[in-house]
């Protein structure tokens, strides 16, 4: 049975890797698209990050970012790409539950559910953008 376990472990690894790569590729593509618009529009303006002003409210939370990106605002599109990037490790954990379940590995399924619960609690908890 050892070879069977290795084979399925290998399969989970392959799928986790593909999922991570897809998430990174999608987010890099969206950020790059936003970057083109952003640089065409603001490329020659002076860059200044000395003083912290914080982002405007439409770039701070999910709803505002989606709205801003829908209107093809360059900064909104970049921010949407960053949201896809943030979602990638979360999706990886969520998928692993399914992967370990397919392998009938109850122990690691439980571990992963615990990780996802704590992760979502911190991600969606008080003071969060989501």
């Amino acid at each position, binding site marked *: 049975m050892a070879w069977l376990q290795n084979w399925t472990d290998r399969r989970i690894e392959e799928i986790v890797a593909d999922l*991570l790569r897809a998430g990174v590729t999608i987010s890099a593509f969206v950020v790059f698209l936003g970057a083109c618009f952003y640089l065409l529009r603001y490329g020659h303006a002076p860059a200044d990050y000395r003083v912290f002003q914080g982002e405007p409210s439409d770039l701070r939370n999910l709803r505002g970012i989606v709205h801003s990106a829908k209107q093809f605002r360059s900064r909104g599109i970049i921010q949407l790409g960053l949201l896809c990037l943030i979602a990638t490790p979360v999706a990886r954990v969520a998928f692993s539950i399914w992967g370990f379940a397919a392998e009938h590995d109850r122990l690691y399924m439980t571990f992963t559910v615990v*990780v996802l619960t704590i992760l979502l609690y911190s991600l969606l908890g008080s003071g969060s953008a989501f």
Partner: protein
Amino acid sequence: MNILEFTLLVAMGSFIAGLLGSLTGLGGGVVLVPLLTIFFKVDIRYAIGASLVSVIATSSGAAAYYVKQGFSNIRIGMFLEIATTLGALGGAFLAAFVSTRALAITFGVMLLYSAYLSRRPRTPEERNLAPDKLATGLRMNGSFPSEEGVRNYNVQHVPAGFGLMFGAGALSGLLGIGSGAVKVLAMDQAMKIPFKVSTTTSNFMIGVTAAASAGVYLNRGYIDPGLSMPVMLGVLAGSMLGVHILMRAETRILRLVFSLVLVLLGGQMIYQGIVGKI
């Protein structure tokens, strides 16, 4: 400096951050935060936001390769993530009671000592340890493609590693940076996991730790699209190069690079603790 020049320069700096981050399992923040704040005069809060983005980008980008090639051990990663995510929650709670300045200085000194410890390669006896009961029960033992072919390893001291990982999570909740260093040290020094497996598994894990606090940073307005864009793209490109270097590099060299980056991080922590910028 206009935005176009700024973007290109930040992207180049981020490339180096991504390269070192993916090679050492520390993420890009170690290089990125001082680079942005000192060289580009960026406010520390924007730099922290950009650093968070860089950690998730290095982690996810490089992990795709490391997992596929059989370096990262996803069971070790998943199990220890319980400790780091719990620790991060605890750290955020403790922040109200702990002096982060004193903590940063203590952590910095610890890192300098760890830099000295982690340079030493393992002896052949230290590489062939008997299986540990708990690690075997948790199915953590595995193999990876070393320079001399596929090598098996037996994980040791799981409770110590779990405890240190809790500390790593708490530190990231308290200081916002540096959890990758404790992750690598816990796996390498305490759990006796081969160095390449330790750094790549840490790399696999740091994205989750960072994602947990992303919602709060985004809501506080720390994540600026104009700054995070060149950081993310540069870091991703750098981490892709790092992946290919790690696969071929000798562990001895990687240990040296790791301990040099630890010295940098330790110095940074002590400095920030003394001037109170943390």
